[in-house]
């Protein structure tokens, strides 16, 4: 039952990410639902218990994209391991605060790194080919902040719903003494 629930949650996150969100959000501002799913699982169940689902979510997402199969899973597992290390040392008691904080850092950082890398590729290509770079990556545009904002907003609701549901599903069963 628990695994079934987690599979449905994982499947819905990927399907919504691939096909539904694009109808409501500008492509550059799409919230990262699979990242939300992963963070929710890691914070709620711990890294060890959520590892299988991080792999499954990554594989499903890679199947619908042009990325090599397994790359997203690898990134999510590494992220989970890193998060667990942070949680072990940081003493942030409010999980909600930690959740929002981590989102902001991860998304802003990953997007900035991605765009910096793209820009570097443009510059290097232009340098070696002795041609103008042409397109410039739009750094710190409105899209950055809106994407982060939408992700945090949707993430907060997802996390809230998951916590509510998982309290019922994953609550420790009372031990009934044997007669």
């Amino acid at each position: 039952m628990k695994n079934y629930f987690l599979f449905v949650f994982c499947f819905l996150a990927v399907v919504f990410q691939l096909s539904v969100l694009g109808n409501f959000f500008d492509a550059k501002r799409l919230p990262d639902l699979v990242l939300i799913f992963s963070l929710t699982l890691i914070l709620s169940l711990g890294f060890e218990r959520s590892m299988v689902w991080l792999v499954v979510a990554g594989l499903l997402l890679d199947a619908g994209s042009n990325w090599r199969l397994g790359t997203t899973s690898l990134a999510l597992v590494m992220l989970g391991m890193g998060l667990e290390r942070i949680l072990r040392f940081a003493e942030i008691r409010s999980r909600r605060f930690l959740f929002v904080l981590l989102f902001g850092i991860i998304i802003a950082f990953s997007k900035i790194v991605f765009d910096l890398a793209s820009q570097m590729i443009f510059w290097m290509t232009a340098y070696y080919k002795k041609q103008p770079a042409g397109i410039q990556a739009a750094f710190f545009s409105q899209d950055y902040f809106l994407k982060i904002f939408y992700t945090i907003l949707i993430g907060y609701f997802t996390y809230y719903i998951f916590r509510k549901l998982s309290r019922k599903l994953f609550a420790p069963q009372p031990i009934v003494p044997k007669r």
Partner: protein
Amino acid sequence: MKFSFSKKTWKFIFTIILLLAVIFISSRGADNPVKGFVLTLTSPFLKTLRIFSGGVAGFLDFLESIGNLKTENENLVRENMELLAENVRLKDIDAQNQELRRELELLPRKKFELEASFVIAQDPREPGSSIVIDKGKNSGLKEGMPLIVANGILVGKISEVFSSTAKAVLLTDPRSAVNAEIEDSGAKGIAKGEYGLGLKIDMVSQTEVIKEEDIVMTSGLGGEMPRGLLVGKIDKVFQSEDKLFQQATIIPAADVSDLIAVFAIKNF
């Protein structure tokens, strides 16, 4: 001192090794059947949710646009009148064209055999890079077939075909390269994608004249694409430092990050 890993660390190491192996295998092209299988299983959900959410999004847009209906109506009436005038002019040109073809004993231009399909998924991490459509081998689609939207605007070409779905690389993807031509001057070049961010025409000879607002279309060279599909408009023209070729950025004619339905050209 005894050194040992915990059970959790072993699990982590094993997962990392397993995933690296999967990535290695998939880099050799062996992931195609797996991706095809997953997409076949998920495509009914993707399609249903895409259509349903598209309807909801359309309804929300409609609610948002109610306030602008009067202005939009006036614009549509004016546009309609302009189109009527354009229609008359085109009918005249068509008649002239047929007359000329008859005189030159040319066959009428062959119409494309199109396969309409819905976009059921789009890679959220690279919006201008690739899409998944709901038709595949069963509908006669093959790798390399061009994808267009209404009025012959090129948006990409099919890169992978599965039984009931297919993946397409969009024009703005860096893997995309299309033989292109500037409509006015006839200058030929290659339209290339720029990391999902835009489009550029390259390898245009220095002897050719290209300027802003020029229309770019497919040249049909190499036989991969039919001639005359609209690609976009020239934005900025650059001169390369070595002075061998000219380059220019292109504003794509269609917004490839927001596609709903596309047509695959099966025969041209």
